[in-house]
């Protein structure tokens, strides 16, 4: 409280114009320290402001591409999905990894999960603008606090805890998804395209 009063007493001594500029600069500084922003472009996401990010690019042939961002205590979104969250905000998106023709259809096994869980998924702190290729097919959004959003992933207002998921397959195929909220990077998401299905056997064990 004392620093605020001190700041106010300093500001009150300034001319009206300088006072306005000082207050705007103070508000901008506060916002830049607290507000994490994401811009959802057509193919990419731009993250800036304080945010934690986990990212797996699509170039990896053994795992699905994913992007996870966490922002606190203020998160803004724009582009294809608009939103504002006051509180904790988490967003995870993953793309289906295309299976080669001939790969048998199967469900995820426990050993696959254990292997994924052992991988070192570390968070990276992002402040300056960073560009990420956006996985598009599956998204999961979690929030604690007050949220307003407008877009395909979330459209509404909420106060409290909430998590929504959305899966929109890209094309005809057989899809296999295993997602865990507590361990999002271990998500397994694969697709066998319809065109290559005739060469594919089934393994239901």
């Amino acid at each position, binding site marked *: 409280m004392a620093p605020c009063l001190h700041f106010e007493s300093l500001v009150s001594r300034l001319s009206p114009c300088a006072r306005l500029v000082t207050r705007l600069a103070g508000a901008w500084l506060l916002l830049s320290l607290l507000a994490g922003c994401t811009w959802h472009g057509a193919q990419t996401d731009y993250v800036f402001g304080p945010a934690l990010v986990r990212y797996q690019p699509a170039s990896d042939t053994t795992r699905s591409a994913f992007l996870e961002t966490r922002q606190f205590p203020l998160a803004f979104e724009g582009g294809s999905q608009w939103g504002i969250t006051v509180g904790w905000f988490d967003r995870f998106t993953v793309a289906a990894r295309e299976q080669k023709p001939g790969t048998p259809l199967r469900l995820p096994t426990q050993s696959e999960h254990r292997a994924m869980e052992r991988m070192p998924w570390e968070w990276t702190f992002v402040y300056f603008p960073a560009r990420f290729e956006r996985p598009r097919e599956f998204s999961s959004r979690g929030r604690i606090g007050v949220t307003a959003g407008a877009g395909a992933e979330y459209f509404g207002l909420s106060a409290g*805890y909430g*998590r929504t998921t959305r899966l929109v*397959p890209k094309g005809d195929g057989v899809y296999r998804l295993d997602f865990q909220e507590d361990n999002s990077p271990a998500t397994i998401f694969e697709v066998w395209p319809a065109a290559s299905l005739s060469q594919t056997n089934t393994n239901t064990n």
Partner: protein
Amino acid sequence: MKRNMQLMLLCALPLAALSAGCCSKYLAFGTATKFGLDITQKPDETIDVTMGYDRYEVASIPVPEQNKKGEGNSATDADDSYSVLATFYVKYGNPFTGNGLRLNQFFATGMAARELAERGEMREFLGDAAGRLQGASEDAKAAGVATKKKETQ
């Protein structure tokens, strides 16, 4: 002027809500868990107001286009956007104790669904495979299983 602005804002919210999900002609699966106050537009295009705890699972599947008499089907032998064969397993727990949402889906769309429907072993498999993970059968009690099967023609 001020009253007009208020009126415009009051009208804009429901109109925007209606237009956002309207006319979506694609397959989509969605889930939601909420605790608190929530006013949301669901993927099935209805507006939902919740106070307290709620959860839902939605599968939104486009229907074949028909003529005015309610006849016809735009799916062909080479192009089919409407067939879906899916298993859907969802498990909810307390998200603050490391038992949050768990989703397990296996589904086929369009021509791939037709291809799978012709395989006897897949027909059998899709009948009871939802949520089946080796060594995780104890989760079966908590499993919610929804199987959708839609065949055209």
